[in-house]
């Protein structure tokens, strides 16, 4: 039987998947190249959302310029994160790097609490809702989906068509050899951190249209982003892309039959079940 609500949920799932895929892409890129997990990734997004909020609502900067500035801001945060926290730990145990970025997570959350307070804030921009044969599709989500896809294509072109992009992919494949081939790995790490941060910034510009920003918003996106990356195989960008849509559909359709929170629960349970079946990621060969 054809169910219009199911179709609506499925379409919303696809739209959500685009944004989740963008979130996962930045994290995957950083992991693939530098071999660290930024546990504080969602907190970088939160900072970007605050950047957008202050630029647009307080300083009345036009939306597009504010978006560019916010992306630059978060890209800079990514570089700072790398220089201050990751670089001194490059040769430490991987788990120490993860814990250090966990410290940054707490730091950024607290910083936002201290600087901006715990109020929920939003841009106050009401985006129209498109109605297609009884289905309601939010324009903000459509825009987010389109921009996320464009962003991903941009990153793909950058990685495959430019010299720096090639160097980045090469470093991801062999960390020891590339410096011998004349690639300055420190520079590549900085560029990767900046791109990773920039993608978080782009995600922030899109999410701020749909969600209120508050210091703990990172906890809403964080776990799901990590799970998508692990489900797709950490560092595997195509895997992450597929996993993002699978996750989004589960959340969206699960949320249709029960509360949205249960949609998340289903997605997390699915994740754990998948760890039994494909522990190295959706697209990986079985061990």
């Amino acid at each position, binding site marked *: 039987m054809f169910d219009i609500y199911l179709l609506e949920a499925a379409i919303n799932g696809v739209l959500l998947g685009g944004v989740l895929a963008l979130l996962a892409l930045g994290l995957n890129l950083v992991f693939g190249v530098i071999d660290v997990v930024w546990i504080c990734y969602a907190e970088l997004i939160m900072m970007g959302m605050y950047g957008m909020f202050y630029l647009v609502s307080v300083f009345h900067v036009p939306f597009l310029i504010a978006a560019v500035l916010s992306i630059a801001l978060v890209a800079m945060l990514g570089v700072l994160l790398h220089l201050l926290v990751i670089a001194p730990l490059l040769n*430490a145990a991987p788990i*120490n790097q993860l814990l250090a970025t966990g*410290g940054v997570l*707490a*730091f950024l959350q*607290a910083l936002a*609490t*201290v600087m901006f307070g715990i109020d929920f804030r939003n841009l106050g921009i009401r985006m129209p809702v498109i109605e297609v044969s009884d289905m309601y599709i939010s324009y903000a989500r459509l825009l987010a989906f389109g921009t996320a896809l464009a962003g991903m294509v941009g990153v793909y072109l950058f990685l495959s068509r430019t010299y720096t992009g090639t160097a980045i992919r090469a470093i991801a494949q062999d960390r020891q050899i590339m410096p011998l081939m004349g690639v300055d790995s420190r520079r590549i790490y900085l560029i990767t951190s900046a791109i990773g941060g920039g993608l978080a910034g782009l995600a922030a510009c899109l999410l701020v249209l749909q969600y209120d920003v508050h210091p703990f918003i990172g906890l809403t996106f964080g776990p799901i982003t990590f799970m998508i990356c692990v489900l797709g195989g950490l560092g595997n960008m195509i895997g992450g892309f597929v996993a993002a849509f699978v996750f989004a559909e589960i959340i969206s359709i699960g949320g249709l039959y029960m509360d949205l929170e*249960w949609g*998340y629960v289903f997605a997390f349970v699915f994740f754990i079940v998948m760890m039994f079946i494909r522990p190295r990621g959706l697209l990986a060969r079985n061990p």
Partner: protein
Amino acid sequence: MTRVVPARPMNRVLPARLMNRTLPCVVGAVLIALPFVYHAPYPLHLMIVVLIWSFAYTSWSVMGRFGLVSLGHGGFMGVGAYGTALLWNYFHLTPWLGVPASMAVAVVLALIVGYPCSRFRITGHYFALVTLALSAIVLQVATASRDITGGSLGYTPERVQGVAGVLAFQFSDKMTWYFVALGVWAVGLLIRWRVDHSMMAYALEAIAEDEDAAGAAGVNVTAEKLKVTALSAAMTAFAGAMYCQYQMFISPDTVSGISVSLQMVFAAVVGGIYVLPGPTVGAIITILLAEGLRIFFGTGALGWDNLVYGTLLVVFIIFLPQGLVGAAWNKLTGGRQAA
């Protein structure tokens, strides 16, 4: 079981014996005597809270010290707290039975997540992220089933008065609570000490160094990891139940989720995960810091405590990864691995 005692140079034997034998007795005696001498309600409350969290952090470190860095312990803690409270309110099952039941649930969860992890060699950051899913699930379930658990508004076990309080594991007297918490904490340290000095520790250390080599040497990698995971999960669930019974109020954010998991890791790392008193010292530092900032700044302190210990965590991991107690111990014993 005989314990292998590594040969030590003579001049190092004395401080080590002092640390291992005399110090615990002195500290224990002081802690038992303390509330009789000084029992203002607020410091006593702080000490109880420190003891409960010390036990939780120690429970985490039981597996954390072998490189099994779990971010799922917020989940176990939540299961312990909510399990006990729900069984008491809905089925009037005394916590004396409800706590073991909740611990059993936590162990089952730990095995469900732990089995694929140890079987398929999911280690390091993979392991941390997979276990993170577990604490996220518990948080979401506790929040989503708000008809039963009260959702994010929190939950309170039904209070009883008088003698029935013993059955309900509720004590109105802070002195009683202090001794309960002290006993639990001491048992927690004892368990960790036993694990550190068991054959299991040798196996797990070998696994942490090199899984393949350990497996080839005849260590059952999966079984050893699952044993220590189950133990750690059960202890953490117990800590959650203790917290619930003492505070008489739990909410998804205070007993489960990533924040709680990270908080456990922070405190343990700051104190030092490789030394027995490390997590306890971590608990003392983090809780006193939070309370101190709260008193100093008043309500304006919102966030300042996390700002300080987020920074501390980063600084510690970069400059002092063995933690405060670990560094002090290394100084005293000349770099030997702590007991």
